[in-house]
């Protein structure tokens, strides 16, 4: 199978793959095709350069970040080693599977959030323990609807979650919220948002403390109340405020989150 055949097959299947191409310097056009768990295909012209570039491409794949990197002809990366060396400029073209959003609680806000998340390219899972609410008919836009308590879902699939993924807990019901928060905190998920009024937030903090969740580093990961301070009222506006908060957390931009303000959530 040629590199292009494997590349296009993986891109179509949504499998993680990175195509590394020398775009400037010695060997322009040379390629290395990098996938997790298998030997890289092709070469950039030097085995040590291949090794270093493959290692970096796997890291970029994890972050779903494409871009240009610079090396020496034998994969040198430190400035001293690069003095007087011809620079090999490589483009790491990364195709990562779509990020995941898990939404706990099958409520009106869930449908709106699932819709907005789909627009942004998320793979959306809706989870609720109540069989009458967690149905495909109510959430046709979700990729998966799971009838379960949170703990088994995190036990089974929590290891899949990474920095690009999001967990949104919309139930307002402590029976469900507390195990969902605990489950999410045990993963590497990048965003954890928990819905509720400021009063709900305060009682939730007390219940979490009772359940042994009180480490500042853990509580710092919780965006609660969920969303930006937009004055959002409808489920759709709230969905936009949640997704906008996820974007702002990823980009590190300073926009006001409800968590960090203290006025009314909406007028």
């Amino acid at each position: 199978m040629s590199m292009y055949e494997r590349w296009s097959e993986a891109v179509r299947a949504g499998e993680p793959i990175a195509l590394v191409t020398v775009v400037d310097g010695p060997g322009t056009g040379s390629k290395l095709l990098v996938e997790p768990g298998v030997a890289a295909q092709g070469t950039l012209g030097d085995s040590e350069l291949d090794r270093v570039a493959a290692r970096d491409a796997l890291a970029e794949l994890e972050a779903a970040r494409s871009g240009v990197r610079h090396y020496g002809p034998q994969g040198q990366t430190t400035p001293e080693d690069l003095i007087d060396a011809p620079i090999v400029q490589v483009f790491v073209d990364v195709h990562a599977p779509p990020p995941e959003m898990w939404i706990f609680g099958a409520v009106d806000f869930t449908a709106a959030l699932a819709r907005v998340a789909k627009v942004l390219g998320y793979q959306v899972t809706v989870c609720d323990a109540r069989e009458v609410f967690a149905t495909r008919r109510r959430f046709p836009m979700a990729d998966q609807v799971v009838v379960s308590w949170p703990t088994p879902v995190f036990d089974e699939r929590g290891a899949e979650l990474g920095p690009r993924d999001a967990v949104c807990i919309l139930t307002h019901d402590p029976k469900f919220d507390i195990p969902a928060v605990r489950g999410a905190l045990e993963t590497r998920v990048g965003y954890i948002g928990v819905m509720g009024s400021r009063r709900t937030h305060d009682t939730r903090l007390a219940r979490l403390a009772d359940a042994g969740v009180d480490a500042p580093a853990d509580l710092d990961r919780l965006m609660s109340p969920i969303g930006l301070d937009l004055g959002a009222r409808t489920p759709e506006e709230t969905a936009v405020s949640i997704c906008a908060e996820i974007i702002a957390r990823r980009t590190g931009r300073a926009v006001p989150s409800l968590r960090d303000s203290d006025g009314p959530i909406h007028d």
Partner: protein
Amino acid sequence: MIDVLDDIDRWRAAGHRVAVARVVDTAGSGPREIGATMAVADDGEVSGSVSGGCVEGAVVGEALAILDGTRDAGVITFGYSDDEAFAVGLTCGGTIHLFIEELDW
């Protein structure tokens, strides 16, 4: 990239040679993301885009030059901020760097 794969496969199945241009870097405001791809067949058929329509015409010319052997694979830059930039610019004022090559891999 996924948006151009079907056209590429169709062209190659019909015996055409193909050049691809990918956005490798952007500066300032740029309409397409890094990795956005445009493919050009040797009969001039085009698929995909690398900007908001500002530079695609010039890219076709470069792609055909690659396919007829009058230029080598390499990076081309569009935008006003670079003295060596191509005459055609982006109306948004941004700069994009494309890597253009024949799809022979």
